């Protein structure tokens, strides 16, 4: 067989390297799909807390899968066992793969030991969504909060994750903050590991 360049033929599918996959997806396609997801869930529920919970559950499934995939693809088969490790993993690697850039900031809460916040000036899922006044404090960032919860839960750091709007002066739209509150056992284990 004569060929200008021969692609290496893998006899066994297990020996193929893990492909990088398509790096980019059409933004408008995603915005359309996400708006349909929100609208579909809106027809199924009566109140906004139920709607937020459904979006979070959808995100949880994404988070659980993203954790396994990124660990093999980007981190060269090393698990995260420490709190700061998994937080910086979420803040940089997960954000980079999902949104194309690292998150704006990662902060530790001042009032409680177990609270951490990831902030983003313009969260992708909130970019094209306007919340009507009668929906109150509903935040579509609940989807991203679900993704973060899926990643943390899968790695063994159970936490309650919520999304909040934080108004900032100088910015037209409020900043979105993902608030992570770890369960008691996580802090105990961290203290034990030293």
């Amino acid at each position: 067989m004569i060929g200008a360049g021969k692609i290496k033929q893998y006899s066994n599918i297990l020996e193929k390297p893990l492909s990088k996959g398509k790096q980019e997806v059409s933004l408008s396609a995603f915005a359309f799909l996400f708006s349909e997801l929100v609208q579909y869930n809106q027809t199924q529920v009566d109140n906004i807390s139920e709607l937020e919970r459904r979006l979070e559950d959808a995100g949880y499934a994404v988070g659980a899968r993203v954790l396994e995939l990124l660990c093999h693809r980007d981190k060269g088969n090393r698990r995260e066992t420490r709190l700061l490790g998994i937080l910086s993993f979420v803040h940089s690697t997960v954000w980079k793969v999902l949104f194309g850039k690292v998150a704006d900031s990662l902060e530790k809460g001042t009032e409680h030991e177990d609270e951490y916040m990831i902030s983003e000036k313009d969260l992708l899922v909130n970019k094209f969504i306007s919340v009507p006044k009668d929906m109150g404090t509903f935040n579509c960032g609940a989807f991203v909060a679900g993704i973060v919860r899926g990643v943390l839960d899968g790695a063994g750091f159970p936490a309650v994750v919520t999304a909040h709007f934080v108004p900032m002066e100088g910015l037209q739209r409020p900043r979105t903050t993902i608030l992570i509150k770890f369960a008691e056992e996580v802090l105990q284990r961290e203290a034990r590991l030293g």
Partner: protein
Amino acid sequence: MTSTACFIIVSRNDIPIYEAEVGSAAKREDAAQLHQFILHAALDIVQDLAWTTSAMFLKAIDRFNDLVVSVYVTAGHILYIYRTDLHMS
């Protein structure tokens, strides 16, 4: 030479997902139960050990007579537990 190995995939909530016996020896009923018992005993050891290291493959974490247990832990704490005979190494 008889060589058996037992392979179990366990989810993060300690629920076995997959189980397989590999080997050339004739299957004995009592041996199968013993193998399962060993693997379940290894679960406790794995769960403690998994938090001490960020490596994924933990080799030979437990021994029982001449049976060696090794485990591969994924990021989502799914355990691939493998038990071999010692002289197989």
